[in-house]
């Protein structure tokens, strides 16, 4: 059943019924067990049929985005020159990105490959979105705790329109304490929304060619407002 219609390595072709069941099942499982990151990924793939082509078109119509679609860069430990990035001056995208990875003890290699997207280019788009997620954290200055993740999800929901981000943004806060909810509602979310609306498409940035650029300068270029001065 699989081997004949595989569009890219790891692709599992699915019928519309299967996609619907997967979307429902993964949503339930992701809410039931938040550690099932693979379920969040599956949900994103099965519900992205409108948002992904949209994103892909935005990329196609932008010179840098178009180049990304042609060259298909991947952000992985094997492709990153960690030593060089660490050697960059403080405040530069590369240095701050590496600092973010170290502080939060995360690695770019833990992103799940796309499985259920039935178009090879769109599979790359969602892959790019996943791999750029950590850079979002860096640009927005948000750590990987629950609060930080929710803020980034709000930003991504506005930017990409992916139902997965919308659901994450809506349901994420459910497990937060009241104090954090307050900070979220009064300062962080309004800022994330304003930045998301104001900023140009974050997938149209060839991050791998901008490691030396200062984070502040990149924020200004994209249209992301400076993060509010609160402890996250």
């Amino acid at each position, binding site marked *: 059943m*699989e081997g004949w219609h595989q569009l890219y390595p790891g692709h*599992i072709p699915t*019928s519309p019924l*299967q996609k619907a*069941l997967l979307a429902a099942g993964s949503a339930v499982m992701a809410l039931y067990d938040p550690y099932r990151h693979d379920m969040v990924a599956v949900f994103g793939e099965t519900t992205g049929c409108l948002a992904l082509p949209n994103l892909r078109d935005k990329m196609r119509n932008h010179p840098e985005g178009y180049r990304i679609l042609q060259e298909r860069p991947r952000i992985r430990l094997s492709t990153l020159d960690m030593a060089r990035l660490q050697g960059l001056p403080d405040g530069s995208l590369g240095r701050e990105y590496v600092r973010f990875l170290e502080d939060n003890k995360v690695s770019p290699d833990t992103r799940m490959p796309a499985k259920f997207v039935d178009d090879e280019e769109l599979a790359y788009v969602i892959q790019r979105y996943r791999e750029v997620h950590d850079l979002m954290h860096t640009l927005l200055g948000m750590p990987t705790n629950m609060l930080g993740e929710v803020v980034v999800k709000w930003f991504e929901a506005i930017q990409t329109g992916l139902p997965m981000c919308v659901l994450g943004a809506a349901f994420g806060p459910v497990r937060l304490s009241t104090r954090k909810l307050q900070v979220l509602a009064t300062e962080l979310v309004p800022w994330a929304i304003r930045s998301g609306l104001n900023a140009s498409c974050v997938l149209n940035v060839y991050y791998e060619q901008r490691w030396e650029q200062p984070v502040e300068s990149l924020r200004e270029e994209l249209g992301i407002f400076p993060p509010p001065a609160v402890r996250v």
Partner: protein
Amino acid sequence: MAAVRLWRWRCRCRALLSRPAGAVRAQRGLAAGPEMHFGFQTVTEEERREKIYQVFETVAKKYDVMNDSMTLGIHRVWKDILVHKMNPCPGTLLLDVAGGTGDIAFRFINYVRSVRQRQLQRKLKHNQNLSWQEIFESYQEDKFNSLGDSQVVVCDINREMLKVGKQKAQRLGYSEGLSWVLGNAEELPFDDDKFDVYTIAFGIRNVTRIDLALQEAYRVLKPGGRFLCLEFSHVSNPLLSRLYDLYSFQVIPVLGEVIAGDWRSYQYLVESIRQFPPQEELKAMIEDAGFFKVDYENLNFGIVAIHSGFKL
């Protein structure tokens, strides 16, 4: 007659082990060439064994949860029916092949225990004229014999499945009468004529050479021993078959992905069910291995079938 048959079988076995697989298979009228099916894919024998090992290694921890979800708990009933059909009495020595997480073994123990209980109760009724002291003493000697010397050996080729089975046994409090052995159904690590009953529940489908497994089953059973096989089979009713296919191919891999994070293993599962020989063909294969009075019973219109045979 039986001696000649045995001798001939032994020669065949030795020939099998020395000649290249293709030639033997052609000689025995089986599919030519080393290609086999793995679900709907075509692979070599060695690849198939590898892949199947990996499938069960991956699903081991979620095996029981998945069984319950896929069959909506009905697999429990099927296994109960198998053990009831077996109707073991205390003292039976059972070999449960591909027994992985121990479902059949635990049911066997429960069954034998309850039969033993009834035996003891009957004995007690006869002893109602004894003194308290004598009754108490009779408790003592039977206390260490709640299973009546019955034993079950759980044999599986996959270490992970056995591990899960052992943990389950500990958790559920099964300690006596159980042994866990790592072994291949095609080449069992047991001597001839050892067991009273041989069961293989939802395992024979995953064996690469079913004929060898059946021969081994014949070998290790005592004369008079019973072979029981519980396996997914073919549904002949056309409407039900359509619904069953729809459920199998549309829902089960999704369940696999959502619950176990593993689509492919459950895709393999539903494909392997379609590739497995139907009831009559399996019956013929069992007869070929030397079993007598081979019969099968369809459960749920053929979704599952229990095949039974005797070594005489």
